[in-house]
């Protein structure tokens, strides 16, 4: 093995030979000389001694300058090691030497240098790093990370200033950088990019606004949703808007702002905005939906149904249950049942565990197809109670529903407190799962839980 190669070379290693005996006045010089020798050593463990000191010891700019000056003459792999140590040292005195390597010829060295600049640099470093965003990984990733961790408001200002002139792919990355820097003060500068000509930029802008924005950004984000291309971009844009209206600070005002816009929007725009309306939920949105459901225009009733089936919590359960009974056709009925199955166990504190299970049991009674029943059984495992376990258990014996029942039993058994509190019952059920399921992962999990082991989700 190669690792033995150095054994013999080390015998005469100059770095560790006889100890120096200098007096106090020579201590610093001796220290630097030793570190120099260690940096040049062939053995990584010797070099690690030097790097540890460079990282955390030997305070002072003179030491920084000494080792920064050594960078240019080292081979590439050693440059990378020393760059990482100097970055951790945190002394900006190393920056000029590092900046040179960031524009040198070796891509791995450039990456390490860019990363180091992130830890040591300031606003002045932004230009260099933005330029590197146009490169490929790992340089691009290093530059992006560096832009995120650069310290100071001036760095943020420079990053924002770079947005305007950047090519779309770089601009999109810069928007993510602004978001990761949590630069809330820059939000007004971001909103325009929600309707950028480039879809990548639009998506990144919406992502950034979702992270940093508040009620004031709702009008711009609605425009972003409307500007998004149907499909994944639209879905992502909607998610961003919903985040602002349901999770961020000031989400109630954001919802109000959204509803105001919705009510005055054109029919075409309302059609697009129905989906986020349903996902935002709440009484204001419900009033809008109720009006749509009562409309004489079938198209508007369909809008209402779409919104209702995408509701974010279980407050619409009574309405949905009532509508299932009166569903005009099988397809509508399926959509309503699907919505009920989805919302019943949501962890939103709208229902307690008992109510959640009751809602699923009610839904189960309304199901006419095994496929729907299976969905109920599988969804039930989100309610981690012994009552759920008892609800699911009988379906292990129904061949057409056994597989979802097996999955739910195993998911419930994953929760050790629940499993241990009803150990014998779970053991029997897991035995039945092992004998029944055709899913090898469920068998493996069931066996682990029976043995008291855990299972790491992949």
């Amino acid at each position: 093995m190669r690792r033995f190669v150095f054994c013999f070379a080390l015998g005469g290693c100059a770095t560790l030979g006889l100890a120096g005996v200098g007096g106090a006045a020579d201590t610093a010089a001796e220290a630097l000389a030793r570190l120099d020798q260690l940096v040049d050593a062939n053995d990584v463990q010797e070099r690690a001694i030097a790097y540890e000191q460079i990282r955390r010891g030997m305070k002072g700019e003179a030491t920084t300058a000494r080792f920064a000056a050594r960078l240019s003459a080292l081979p590439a792999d050693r440059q990378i090691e020393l760059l990482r140590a100097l970055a951790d040292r945190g002394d900006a005195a190393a920056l000029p030497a590092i900046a040179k390597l960031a524009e040198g010829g070796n891509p791995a060295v450039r990456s390490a240098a860019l990363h180091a600049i992130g830890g040591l640099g300031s606003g002045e470093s932004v230009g260099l790093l933005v330029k590197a965003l146009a490169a490929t990984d790992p340089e691009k990733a290093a530059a992006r990370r560096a832009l995120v961790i650069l310290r100071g408001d001036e760095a943020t200002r420079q990053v924002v200033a770079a947005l305007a002139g950047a090519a779309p792919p770089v601009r999109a990355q810069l928007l993510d950088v602004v978001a990761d820097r949590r630069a809330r003060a820059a939000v007004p500068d971001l909103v325009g990019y929600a309707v950028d000509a480039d879809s990548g930029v639009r998506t990144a802008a919406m992502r950034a606004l979702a992270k940093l924005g508040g009620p004031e950004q709702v009008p711009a984000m609605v425009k972003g949703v409307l500007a998004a291309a149907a499909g994944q971009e639209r879905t992502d844009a909607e998610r961003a808007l919903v985040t602002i209206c349901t999770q961020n600070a000031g989400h109630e005002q954001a919802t109000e702002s959204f509803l105001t816009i919705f009510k005055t929007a054109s029919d075409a725009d309302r059609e697009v905005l129905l989906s986020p309306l349903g996902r935002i939920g709440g009484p204001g949105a419900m009033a809008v939906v109720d009006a749509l459901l009562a409309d004489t225009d079938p198209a508007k009733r369909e809008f209402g149904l779409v919104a209702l089936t995408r509701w974010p919590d279980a407050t619409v359960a009574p309405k949905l249950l009532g509508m299932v009974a009166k569903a005009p056709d099988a397809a509508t009925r399926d959509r309503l049942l699907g919505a009920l199955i989805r919302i019943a166990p949501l962890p939103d504190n709208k229902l307690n565990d008992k109510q959640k299970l009751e809602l699923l049991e009610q839904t189960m009674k309304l199901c006419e197809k095994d496929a729907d029943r299976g969905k109920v059984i599988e969804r039930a495992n989100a309610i981690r109670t012994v009552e759920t376990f008892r609800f699911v258990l009988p379906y292990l014996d129904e061949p057409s529903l056994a597989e979802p029942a097996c999955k739910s039993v195993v998911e419930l058994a994953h929760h050790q407190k629940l499993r241990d509190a009803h150990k014998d019952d779970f053991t029997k059920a897991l035995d039945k799962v092992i004998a029944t399921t055709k899913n090898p992962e469920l068998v493996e999990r069931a066996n682990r839980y029976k043995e008291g082991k855990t299972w790491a989700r992949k």
Partner: protein
Amino acid sequence: MTDRSVSRRRFLASTSLTAGSAVAAPYVITSKALGDATTPPASDRIVMGGIGIGNMGSGDQGAFLGRPDVQYVAVCDVRKKWRDGGKDRVDAKYGNKDCAAFVDFRELLARDDIDAVHIATPDQWHSVMTIAACLAGKDVYLQKPETLTLREGPLMIAAARRYGRVVSGGSQRVLEDYRTIVEPCWAGEIGTIRSADLSIGPPPMACYLPGQPTPPDIDWDLWLGPAAWEPYNAGRCDGNFGTGGNSWRSYIDYSGGSMTDWGAHNFGGLIFATNLRGQQPAKVEYHPRSADGKDGAYATIVYPTGVEIHCNRPQHLKPQKPSITHERGIQIMGDGVATAATPVPVYKGQGGIYGDFIECVKTRERPFRDIELAVNTMTGIHMLAIAQRLERSLAWDRATQAFTGDEEANHLLDRARREPWII
């Protein structure tokens, strides 16, 4: 990386370093030495073994075994079922029967082809094994809670530093589960942090379980190790995650109970968010149950910078509008005057905390949960446990690693290890 382990292998060829018996183990040449498109050649892989392959250990084993830059060669467990299971997984992965299986960790540490070990034993073993591993030249991934007593931490750090070892603690949650409080705090959004509230679990129990016949598949004396001799009982040594009396995590000889088990995560996450990981507390203030009995006892961990962490403080005493909260019973108060952002430390390498450890084994840098940071975390929780046990406030001197002016509390800094274990 290739010259990584040269010297220690030379030196350790004929030595074993703990007070226990020295055991020479055969050198085993691993298979698949040449590597392929996705697997580095054997000479560039980190050669690993695992000690304690039960519940958590098997998970750690799986994480390391799945890495192309790791060659897993040995398992050690005092229980046959875990040992055999661990070996089977390795052999199945590599398609051979090469994985060595040991009952005694000293035999595994004596193998000079092993670069690093992961340890997931009950807590009474952590310090002994970590220190022994450092002496044996191994890097260590150590499951949390990393320490069982206050005296152990500095000795573990010293061993790691003395031999230039990478020793990572094992709470993956600290970085991964608390982002919603970590990011705004490090971004300076809530200003200078003044205080926090934390829900933390109870301390461990004394174990009074009766003896049972010792099954043949366990080396009971080695399972107990440095802990007091007690008769075998399945409930004493079961390796599940419970802390309610049906596992070793419940009992004071082997664990700090839920207080250190989840505390390593939850308290760890909080002091990471509040950037206190580099410090140790200055004191713990104990607040007894209120005279009217309405408020239960609670304690406040106070840091040298003045930050107070209230543990299980009654709800009505908490700020009604905290700056930020986390679903696991954490709320943090800042002064609201935004401060400069500081970059959040992250894992190195790829693959979460396991990847961080392996990357550091290669680069010799300190990992995200370096043993020193882990010990600082555990120190706060051990101080809390002792204050609660004694029902009084305690002051801590970091320099001497002792309580100030409280001889009785200092009785609890450590506990005598059962012979022949010594640190």
